[in-house]
């Protein structure tokens, strides 16, 4: 007699039960934790935006330190004075603009007639105004994104980058202090021409002392991630240029 586990009918019944058990287990876990996960993502966005405009707990060491999660909500309200949405020439105010899904907007705009919503965050710190632009592009393996904070003369005041799956120790270093700090003081214009900021190798300026060259020293072993950032900065800031000029003149 063959063992009961060898029978076809048993195999089919076993797999059906297995699928039901595992499926409901995973669905239950995902459903139960969804609220908490969404909340964490929302807080993270606020932390990132604040980080770009220089509001963080960075000490003198080399670690990235965000505002503690408990204080984020109030800090965000205090420093981010206005959240604007730009859509097809119109500017509206929206206090939840930071929740706009850039990926979705980009995909919808690509499909056709849709004019994508472009969120812009205006921050005030010590009498200075910051214009914070969300960015999103492609790295080597997967998406890269971030925020860039400009002042009224289009000088970079700070950036924040993050990624989904860049190589640890190589491309993943875009979210490290030593790379992000290099962007401070860089310009996105060369005279009157829009250049963006290029991540380049061999610019002979590893300490990034030259702030007028529109260039930042690249990471070793992360050429494609760097090129992705260069393209992302150029492409996304360009969308905001007509909009920024209008707002800053006011």
């Amino acid at each position: 007699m063959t063992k009961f586990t060898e029978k076809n009918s048993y195999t089919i019944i076993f797999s059906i039960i297995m699928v039901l058990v595992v499926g409901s287990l995973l669905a239950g876990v995902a459903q139960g934790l969804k609220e908490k996960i969404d909340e964490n993502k929302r807080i993270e966005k606020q932390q990132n935006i604040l980080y770009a405009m220089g509001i963080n707990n960075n000490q003198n060491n080399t670690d990235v330190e965000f505002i503690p999660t408990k204080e984020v909500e109030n800090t965000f309200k205090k420093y981010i004075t206005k959240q604007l949405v730009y859509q097809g020439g119109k500017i509206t105010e929206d206090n939840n603009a930071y929740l706009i899904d850039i990926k979705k907007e980009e995909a919808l705009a690509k499909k056709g007639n849709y004019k994508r919503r472009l969120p812009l965050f205006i921050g005030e710190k010590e009498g200075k105004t910051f214009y914070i632009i969300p960015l999103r592009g492609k790295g080597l393996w997967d998406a890269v994104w971030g925020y860039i904070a400009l002042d009224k003369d289009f000088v970079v005041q700070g950036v924040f980058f993050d990624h989904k799956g860049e190589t640890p120790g190589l491309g993943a270093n875009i979210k490290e202090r030593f790379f992000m700090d290099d962007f401070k003081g860089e310009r996105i214009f060369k005279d009157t021409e829009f250049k963006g900021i290029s991540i380049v190798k061999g610019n002979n300026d590893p300490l990034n002392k030259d702030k007028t060259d529109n260039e930042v020293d690249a990471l070793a072993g992360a050429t494609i991630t760097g090129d992705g950032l260069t393209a992302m900065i150029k492409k996304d800031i360009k969308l905001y240029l007509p909009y920024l000029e209008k707002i800053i003149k006011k």
Partner: protein
Amino acid sequence: MGILPKKDTKLILDPLFDNNPITIQVLGICSALAITAQLKASIVMAISVIAVLSVGNVIISLMRNIIPSKIRIIIQLIVVATLVIIVDQILKAFSYELSKQLSVFIGLIITNCIIMGRFEAFALANSPWRAFLDGIGNAAGYGIILIIVGFFRELLGSGTLLGFPVLGDPINKTGVYAFGYENNGFMLLSPMALIVIGLIIWVQRSRNKELIEE
């Protein structure tokens, strides 16, 4: 180890040295190449694999008498995938910072051949307690190699350990850099992980001649 009977001790100690999954069985090489550019990532991966492999081994061992043999590989895959997804979701909900740091590693655990290898070779034929010990032993044996490789790659490639600059500052030329030392960027690329593993295998087999295949 006096706490466990000798037979059980062997289950843990064997895979650490003489039957190491990476250097002897040559399993789990792909993840050893991918994530050992930094010591911290290696340590995190080692801990995660210990957790997943020991729990997974116990679950498979408990189910060993009712799993239909025709679809056992699929069942093993489902068990490890389910475990990994649950761990990932829990981390995202309660320890978001940590889950950001682990990012791709959690997902990579599923693809680790050591896990499926131990399910198939050991858990399916042994009691839960023995399977648990076997899981810990094999994952630790894998982890040790990962940490050794990560140590050398980070030290020689970036001049740091766990992110601390132990060799001085390469840009301002302090520490050993003052004498003309340079970081070897090649160490950060995957092929160097293979070469380091090759050196480990060489050292291990030259010390224990019994390990050399005919």
